[in-house]
């Protein structure tokens, strides 16, 4: 099996947890402690950026996320933690994409001829992903 610079295998296993780093407070709600669907809407290239966080505790995950935020001149607010299996249950998939180390993309987003219908479909999938996600706030956020 191919090994990546991080030492992780190329294939992202169903049992691996993933982190979607949150760099804006618009993507989560502290009132009901949840990640919002907006955090999981794919960008135009339909590759949603996540990090593989297996074998990392919260402080190591925070250390992984800090440079991601810093390079964008943003503050790391926290992350949404979601399992790979939950992503695949929604007929999406994971592709390892290093560097940076541990980076991967959620891919396989369905397309529709009507741009707005496609947006609605992506919103529905994003709502499902958000439901599967656990909100972890960065210390001091």
């Amino acid at each position: 099996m191919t090994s990546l610079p991080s030492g992780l295998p190329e294939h992202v296993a169903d049992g691996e947890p993933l982190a979607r780093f949150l760099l804006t407070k618009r993507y989560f709600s502290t009132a009901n402690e949840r990640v919002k669907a907006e955090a999981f809407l794919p960008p135009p290239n339909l590759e949603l950026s996540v990090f593989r966080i297996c074998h990392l505790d919260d402080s190591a995950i925070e250390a992984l996320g800090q440079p991601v935020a810093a390079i964008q001149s943003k503050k790391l607010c926290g992350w949404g933690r979601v399992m790979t299996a939950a992503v695949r249950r929604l007929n999406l998939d994971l592709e390892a994409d290093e560097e940076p180390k541990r980076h991967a993309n959620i891919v396989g987003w369905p397309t529709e001829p009507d741009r707005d219908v496609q947006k609605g479909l992506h919103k529905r999938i994003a709502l499902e992903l958000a439901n599967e996600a656990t909100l972890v706030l960065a210390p001091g956020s």
Partner: protein
Amino acid sequence: MIAQVTTVGSLSLTPPSPGVSSAAEFIEERYSDWKRDLAGSVVLYGPQAEAREALEEVYVETKEANWDGYGALSVGPETYDAATRFLEALPWGIPAPEVSAEPDGSISFEWFYGPRRVISISVNPHHRLAYAILDGGDQSHGAATFFDQIPDRIIREIRSIIPS
């Protein structure tokens, strides 16, 4: 032309059907005045005042591209105007939604009453709404046209999510 009587008591916002006579124009004008006045009072004092304030805050925060750190498009003034019209078009009695922005520069309005009881509607400047609903075991999504009136089926979906 058929002029539809609009009852203030029931706070119906059903518009008169378009007409061609001067009487029809007069009724349409008065209806627009009345709707604007009513919307003004709802926006200033009703639950939508809260949503308007949140919308303003979101707009200020997302005026610059990459506001989310992932290359999000900025929310433009046309989107802000469309979102304002959306809030004004919400019928009386619907609670204020949560307001956010999306990577493509749309504004989203969400009524969240639990993980399986939620509706999210995106407003863009192209007179189209994209929406998604999770309601118990049911789920749906789609798009609808929006000028100054929210389609009835969308209103019905919002009402079905709100606990009675």
